[in-house]
């Protein structure tokens, strides 16, 4: 069992949501450094 008595495989869905938000933040910082508008 993971946190809040959630089975690990179900808990991982929450991790995916949090990870997606972090990925979006990282993309918007890193992805736009290299590019310029055309």
């Amino acid at each position: 069992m993971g946190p809040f008595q959630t089975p690990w495989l179900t808990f991982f869905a929450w991790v995916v949501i949090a990870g997606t938000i972090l990925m979006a933040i990282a993309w918007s910082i890193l992805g736009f450094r290299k590019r310029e508008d055309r």
Partner: protein
Amino acid sequence: MSEIGIYILVLALYTLLLVGIGVIASKRMKNSEDFYLGGRSVGPWVTSLSFVAAYFSSVVIIGGGGFGYRFGMSSIWVGAANVLIGVALAWMVLGRRIRLFTARLGTMTVPGFLAERFKAKEARVFAALVISLFLIIYNVSILKGMGHAFEGLMGIPYIWAVLLSGAIIILYVSLGGYLAVVWTGFFQAWVMGFGLILLTFASLKAVGGLTAANAALQAMSPGLVNTPGEWGWAGLISYSMIVSFGVWGMPQLTVRFYSIKSVSVLRVGTVVATIGGSMAVLPYLNGAIARVLHPELANADLAIPTLTKAVLSPWGGAIFLAGVIAAGMSTFASVLIITSGAVVRDVVQKGLGRQLEEHQVVRYSRLVSTLVGIVSLAIALRPPALVLVLTAFSWAAISSTCLWPMLFGLYWKRATRWGVLSSMGLGLASALIWIGIGSPYGLHGFIPGILISLLALVLVSLFTKRLPDDHLARVFGEQ
């Protein structure tokens, strides 16, 4: 103040605000690009939150709660797929290129993009007809969802509820066009999010926290907390794919990228949309909590309305109802404007070759969005019994037609006119046939539809003549 009085007050204020936005937006409208794309001048916050509002309709909130109720906590995975594939990846993969390509090609609609990108005028009319026909079906189910929410929480008769909410949307869309749609959508996303968060806090408190909810569900049946649990892998994966990857082919969502001010909008927009989109998980979570608090419900779709009445005060309930109505209205409004564009620009102007002045385009667009709204309303007054089945049917049909041509149009130079035409035709046909023969193996028509349209696009393109190099260079910005 009586409970009904509170509901009426909150909803009346809310309606006034929406119509006010419609009137203000109508004053800023000068030509058809303003009507359809807000003059390509929309910033990151409005674009991203109106995307979220158009994505999550009342059907998702009420139906998502129903899934959470029936299948339990593993439904959280559907919400996770919505955030990852339906929002974050859609913005990263589609956003930048759609904005750049459609501006270079001078197109305002999805059928228009397909026609110009692949030099295929047949694609324009075909896509426009598929989009307008199947989005009307989607509209009907959205109205039905709102009607039932009004009916369940306020006791207003279904027919009045549908007429009232339909009339308000038609008014502000025909007045204010796309700008009214995105600005109301922006506002509606806040109402929706606030309503959902309010409900989540109250229901978690009522159940004694997430740990207690999980323990109670585990005691009922381990399938309600395990993954895939009651869903089974096939059900969980195929449903998650329809409601998240399917978005990539839905024009009322991809059009958001046409209208942004510049590609730099995507920088903030992607983050805001992803954070806003993460509220997709809340209806599923609340549905699962409703299973603990009200295990006796005969119809799972009553999970969210029942929970709302049980855990929220009348003021909270009114705000939550406004959120559900907001979710329905913003999606309906977005669909209305897309259908009107498909009919006026793609079928009448380009397909039938009618020459129209700018002011005529705006006038006809207003007229068509009103008419489409009225037709949807008329069907929704006596909806076909299978309206929820028809919703999934309409998503499957539109995605099977538009998803790959759009994606390959942005990334693959080798895609040809015939590749795209065969992908659209075979994708639609296979989705419809699969559903028509009763969706064998429990697999939704969306899956064979997108698989066959993918195969057709790649194989036919490889064996047919590629598009001229100068055309590709122009589209891909290499000139």
